[in-house]
């Protein structure tokens, strides 16, 4: 078996495009969101068990790690939302030109960052 034909290199050498980056991020954020939503549901139901749990959650959310996680989740949701809109438009058969996919890809990336900031500011004023 020494002379078995090798497999040519693939992901190691293929250049990333905006479209491929947005596509893989869409899938990763999708999985993260499912886990996060389940987690939040459990968390909210914990409140039924009393004030102690509320205080604990509050303490965690006020910590640096808690804030970081909230920010990350906000980004993940924003990204997923915008990317999904992009996918819906594509499912209708529009936006397949190479140039257009680049523009919509960048819109999703920068839009998600802007959304994160907006959501954070709004949330901060409420709490």
């Amino acid at each position: 078996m020494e002379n078995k034909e090798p497999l040519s290199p693939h992901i190691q050498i293929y250049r990333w495009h905006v479209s491929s980056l947005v596509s893989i991020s869409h899938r990763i954020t999708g999985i993260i969101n499912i886990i996060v939503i389940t987690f939040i549901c459990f968390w909210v139901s914990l409140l039924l068990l009393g004030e102690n749990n509320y205080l604990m959650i509050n303490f965690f959310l006020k910590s640096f790690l808690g804030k970081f996680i909230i920010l990350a989740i906000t980004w993940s949701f924003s990204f997923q939302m915008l990317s999904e809109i992009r996918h819906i438009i594509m499912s209708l058969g529009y936006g397949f030109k190479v140039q257009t996919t680049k523009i919509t890809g960048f819109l999703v990336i920068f839009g998600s960052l802007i959304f994160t900031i907006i959501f954070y500011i709004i949330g901060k004023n409420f709490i």
Partner: protein
Amino acid sequence: MVQLNLPKNSKIKKGKYFSDKTGSKNIKKVNIYRWDPSSGENPRIDTYEVDLGDCPSKVLDILNKIKNEIDSTIAYRRSCAHGVCGSCAMNMGGKNGLACTQPHAEIDGDLDIYPLPHLKVKKDLICDLDGLYKQYQSIEPWLKSSSNSETSEIIQSKEDRKKLDGAYECIMCACCSTSCPSYWWNGDKYLGPAVLLQAYRWIIDSRDEEREKRLKKVADELKLYRCHTILNCTSACPKGLNPAKAIAEIKKMLATSNL
């Protein structure tokens, strides 16, 4: 299953270095994937210093120059040199394309040349495309109509003919299919952009009478829906076609028709 690393026998080693002997100042370093089936060794990357002062504009010209003047052992497919036959499809500068239509000036820095991604290598830049051709055969890429129309001309309106534009020009060079990560991981089941574009070409042909059968055949979780709109295919196509859009159109047809 997604396999990110290359298997043990495919790990790439550093190869030989061919220094420039012409003394030219206009030098481009060209890194080429080499594998010799008779050596029993792993693939390697050989580096060639090529004098661009005496070389035409395309990547294929560089390869020809290397083969003619520096190292005649290098193997690659080529035929028409005009982007019509699709033989010289390879990965240049991290993107698939035809060596004969890809200007080397568009690739900055060193020029990296690899065979088409995620295929079995036969030798150097030559890959095994058997799987792709079998899949192409599976969609039955020929006109199917009832026997009485076989003796007479089948009339097609100008509008119906126009639907085939952007689909019939495909030269089956495999640039798109081998640029698709979905095809890398599921190439045995997922048909890939090239074959799906051809499936689309026969589905929308007004002269073909087995449109529904063709649609049913392709409507499969793995055959069709492994397309995740990564869009590497469209950006790789050297003929400027849009396989991703064709796949989206097939999905749309399936979603809107009662099969």
